[in-house]
C-alpha cells in the first residue's frame, strides 16, 4: 500500500509548546476518506491504534496495515459498540472522532443519528475511559457560507448552520464543547472545509473525470472562493491539535494556506491532470448561470425539509457560494503549517486514483 510522503506527521521540534503524543489512539471513521489517511500517519508512530469501522469488509484492509491496529466493527450510534471501542483502551489515550455522514443515503435523519448520536456516545466513552484528549472533526457547515466573496471565517465567526448536515455538525460541536466544559475530557474541534487527497471516495473520481473533459459546471464568473484542505495537511492539523498545549477547549480552522477562487481550482486540476499524463479536452468548464445554482439550492432546501437528500442538488447549490476560512490561529496556537500546495495535492490525489485502477 503506497503511503504518500505528504503524510509525514510531526516536525522534529515542536513549533509551539506541546505535550508528547499519546501511545494509544482511538480513531472513529477509520475507513473513511480522512480516517484512512490519519491511520496511515499513525502507524509506526503509536503503540496501539484502535479503529472503528462500520462494516466487516472495511475491517480487513485496515487490520493488514500493522499489528498495532485493532479494528472494532460496529455502528457508532450503538452504545454497546462504543463500549467495545473503548474496552481495555485505558486512560491517557487520544481520541480522533472522524465518523460522520456527509451524503446520507437514507434521508436527512441519518445526519442527526450518526453525526450527533455517534458524537455523544464517543464523547461519553472517551470521558469514562479517561482519555487525555478528544479531537473532533467538524466542518465549515455549522458556519454556512461567507456573507461576501472577500469575507473569511475565523474562529470568532458566529454559528449559522447550513441545512441538515450543518445543523447536525453544529449540534455535535455543542456536545463536544459541553464535554470539555464538564472538566473531565479535554477536547479540540478541528473544522475542515472541502478536502481532497488519497483514499477518496468514488464521487471524487467523478470530480476529476468531469474536469478533465471540460464538463464541470462553473457557477457565475468563478470568483467565489473556496478553502480546501489537502488530507495530508488536515492530518497534520489533527495531530497538532492532539499535542498542542493551547488547543484544549478551542476550535481551529484547518485548511490549505489560503482560499482559492473556484476558477483557479478548476484550472489547477486540469494542469495537475496533464502533469500526470492525462490530457484534458473540451473547454475549461461549463459556464452555469447563478440562477441555476440558486434553483438547485432552493430545491435542496425544500427536499431537506421533507427529510430527503439529493447529493447533486446539494453540491450544485453550494458551488455558488464562497466558503473560505483563515488558518492563522491554527498556525499561531497549535503550530499548524500547511506544506502541500493545491497542485501538488491534486497530483497526489490523481496518482492515488490511477494506482487504484480508477479510470479518470
Amino acid at each position, binding site marked *: 500500500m503506497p503511503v504518500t510522503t505528504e503524510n509525514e506527521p510531526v516536525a522534529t521540534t515542536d513549533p509551539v509548546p506541546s505535550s508528547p503524543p499519546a501511545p494509544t489512539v482511538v480513531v472513529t471513521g477509520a475507513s473513511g476518506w480522512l480516517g484512512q489517511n490519519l491511520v496511515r500517519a499513525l502507524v509506526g508512530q503509536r503503540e496501539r491504534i484502535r479503529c472503528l469501522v462500520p462494516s466487516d469488509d472495511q475491517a480487513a484492509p485496515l487490520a493488514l496495515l500493522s499489528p498495532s491496529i485493532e479494528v472494532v466493527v460496529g*455502528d457508532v*450510534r*450503538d*452504545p*454497546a*459498540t462504543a*463500549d467495545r471501542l473503548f474496552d481495555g483502551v485505558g486512560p491517557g489515550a487520544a481520541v480522533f472522532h472522524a465518523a460522520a455522514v456527509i451524503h446520507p443515503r437514507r*434521508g*436527512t*435523519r441519518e*445526519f*442527526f*443519528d450518526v453525526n*450527533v*448520536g455517534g458524537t*455523544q456516545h464517543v464523547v*461519553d466513552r472517551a*470521558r*469514562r475511559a479517561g482519555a487525555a484528549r478528544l479531537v473532533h472533526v467538524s466542518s465549515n457547515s455549522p458556519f454556512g457560507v461567507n456573507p461576501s466573496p472577500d469575507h473569511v471565517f475565523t474562529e470568532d465567526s458566529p454559528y449559522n448552520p447550513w441545512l*441538515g448536515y450543518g*445543523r*447536525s455538525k453544529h*449540534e455535535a460541536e455543542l456536545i463536544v464543547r459541553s464535554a470539555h466544559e*464538564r472538566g*473531565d475530557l479535554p477536547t479540540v474541534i478541528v473544522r475542515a472545509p472541502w478536502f481532497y487527497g488519497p483514499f477518496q471516495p468514488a464521487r471524487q473520481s467523478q470530480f476529476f473525470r468531469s474536469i478533465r473533459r471540460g464538463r464541470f459546471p462553473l457557477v457565475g464568473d468563478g470568483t467565489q472562493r473556496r478553502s480546501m484542505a489537502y488530507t495530508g495537511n488536515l492530518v497534520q492539523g489533527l495531530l497538532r491539535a492532539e499535542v498542542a498545549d493551547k488547543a484544549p477547549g478551542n476550535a481551529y480552522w484547518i485548511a490549505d494556506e489560503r482560499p482559492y477562487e473556484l476558477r483557479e481550482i478548476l484550472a489547477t486540476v486540469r494542469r495537475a491532470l496533464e502533469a500526470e499524463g492525462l490530457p484534458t479536452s473540451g473547454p475549461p468548464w461549463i459556464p452555469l448561470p447563478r440562477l441555476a445554482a440558486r434553483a438547485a439550492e432552493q430545491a435542496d432546501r425544500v427536499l431537506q425539509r421533507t*427529510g430527503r437528500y439529493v447529493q447533486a442538488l446539494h453540491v450544485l447549490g453550494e458551488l455558488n457560494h464562497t466558503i473560505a476560512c483563515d488558518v492563522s490561529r491554527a498556525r499561531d496556537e497549535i503550530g499548524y503549517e500547511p506544506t502541500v500546495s493545491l497542485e501538488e495535492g491534486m497530483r497526489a490525489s490523481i496518482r492515488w486514483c490511477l494506482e487504484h485502477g480508477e479510470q479518470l
Partner: protein
Amino acid sequence: MGDLTTEVLVIGSGAGGAVTAAALAEAGRTVTVVEEGPWVDPDEHEPFSLAEMVAKYRHRGAGAALGNPPIAYAEGRCVGGSTEINSGLYHRLPEHLAQEWRTTYGIDEFTPEVLEAYAERVESQLSVARLPGAPPPSSAVLERGATKLGWRNVEFARVFSYDEAGRGTKQTMSRTMLPRARAAGATIIPDCRVVSLVRQGDRVVAARCRRTHPGGGVERLTIHADHVFVCCGAVHTPALLQRSGIRHNVGNGLKMHPTIKVAARFPHPVDHGDVPMHRVTEFSPFIAIGGSASRRGQVAMALADTGQPIDEAMADWENISTYYAAIRSEGSGRVVALPGLRSPIVTYSLSEADLSRLARGLVHLGELLLAAGAVELHPSVTGGHVVRRLDELGIWWDQVTRARANLMTVHLTSSLRMGEDRRRTGTDSFGRVWGFRNLRVNDASLLPDAPGVNPQAAIMAIATRNCDHFLADA
C-alpha cells in the same frame, strides 16, 4: 343573562392567571378571575388517579396535537389550572435562554438579573423545597444510573411544603396564589367559559361568558372590564383571541417538549404514588431524562405502547415504573380555532432532527435504566423491541419512526411570544397584545420557545414581572 363589572378581568387561573390575580389584587386593584373548569378541593383526589383526570383534566387528559406522528398532550381544566395536576417540579429559566430570547425577540427588561429577582419573589411566595430525607426508589433509580455512568443529574426542587413528619403538600395555585388573591379582595368564578372578547377600537371592553351552574343550568354572563388578562395556556389563549378576531401572530409557532417513554422493570418493588424528582441533565439543553407518574393504570398504558401483550409484565407491575426522555424540538405547531367548535385544532410538526433526538433520548434513557439495574425495558414504540441487555439498545434507533413512535407532552408554550420584534411576536415585551391598549396575555403562550425544563417557574416569574410593569404603567 347577567352583567358584571370589574377593573381587571383575569381569564384562567393557572400558573399565569393565579399569579396575575394575586399580584394585582394585592396592589389594590379590583380583580375578577374566571375559570372554565370547576373548583375541586385539592385533597379530594389522589394525584394522577383516574378520578383526578375526570375532575381536573381537560378532555380527561386526552388532548392530541395532530401531525405525523400525532402527539398526545394533557392540560388542567380546573381552578388552579395545570398546577393542580403537574408534578410540581420547579426550575428557573436557564440563563442562556433568557439571553437568547432577549436578543432574538427584542424583549425589553429580560436580563437574567431581572428574571432572577422575580424568581426569588415567586419562591418567597410559594414554598420551593427539596425532599427532606432520602428520595423514593423510583427517583433513586435515576440518581443511581446517572452516577454509575458519570452523567450529571440533579434532584429538582418542587413547589412543595413539608411538615415535620416530612409529608409533602404540593403548593398548587388553589392552595397559594388564589387564596392570596381572594384575601386581597379578588372574586373567583369557576365553571365559567369565556366565549369571546368584545372589542371597541383598540380596547377590549367586555368578555362574553357562559357560566355553568352546579345544577347544570347555563347562564350567559357579560363581564365589563377596564383591563383584560388572558391566561388560558398556550392552547386556549390563542384560541380565545382568534375567536375574538385577533390574529396577528396568534396561534402559530406553538412549541412543546415531545416526550418518549420507557416502562422499566426492576428486580425489586418501586413506589407508585409520586413522580421522581431527579432529572438527568447530562444531555441538556437538547434532552432531559426523568420519571413519570406510574400508578398501575399508567404502568399498564406504558407497557401497552409496544403493542404486545402486557399480562405477564403486569403480574409484576409493582416492580415497574415509567421514565421519559423529553427533547427541545425544532418543529412547531399551530392552534386554530374553527367557528362552531369548542376546542381548537392543534397541530405539531416534528423535524427529522427532532425524531433523531427522540431516538437518541430513548437510547440514552435505556442505557441509564440498565445501569440502574432495570431488567426489562418496554419503549413507547409500536412493535418496539423489549430490551434486556445493553447490546440490544441500538435497535431502537431505527424503530423510532414517524409511524411507530408514541409521543406525548405536558409542556405547551409559545403560541404568541413576547418581544418588540412585531414580525415574530404577538405581544410586546410585557404581554400586551399588539394593537390593543388594555388587552394582555400572561401565561405560557408568551415564552418564545419551550424552555427545555418544566416551564411553570418561568411562567410565574414572567407573569409577576409583567404585572409590575402593568402596575407602573396603568
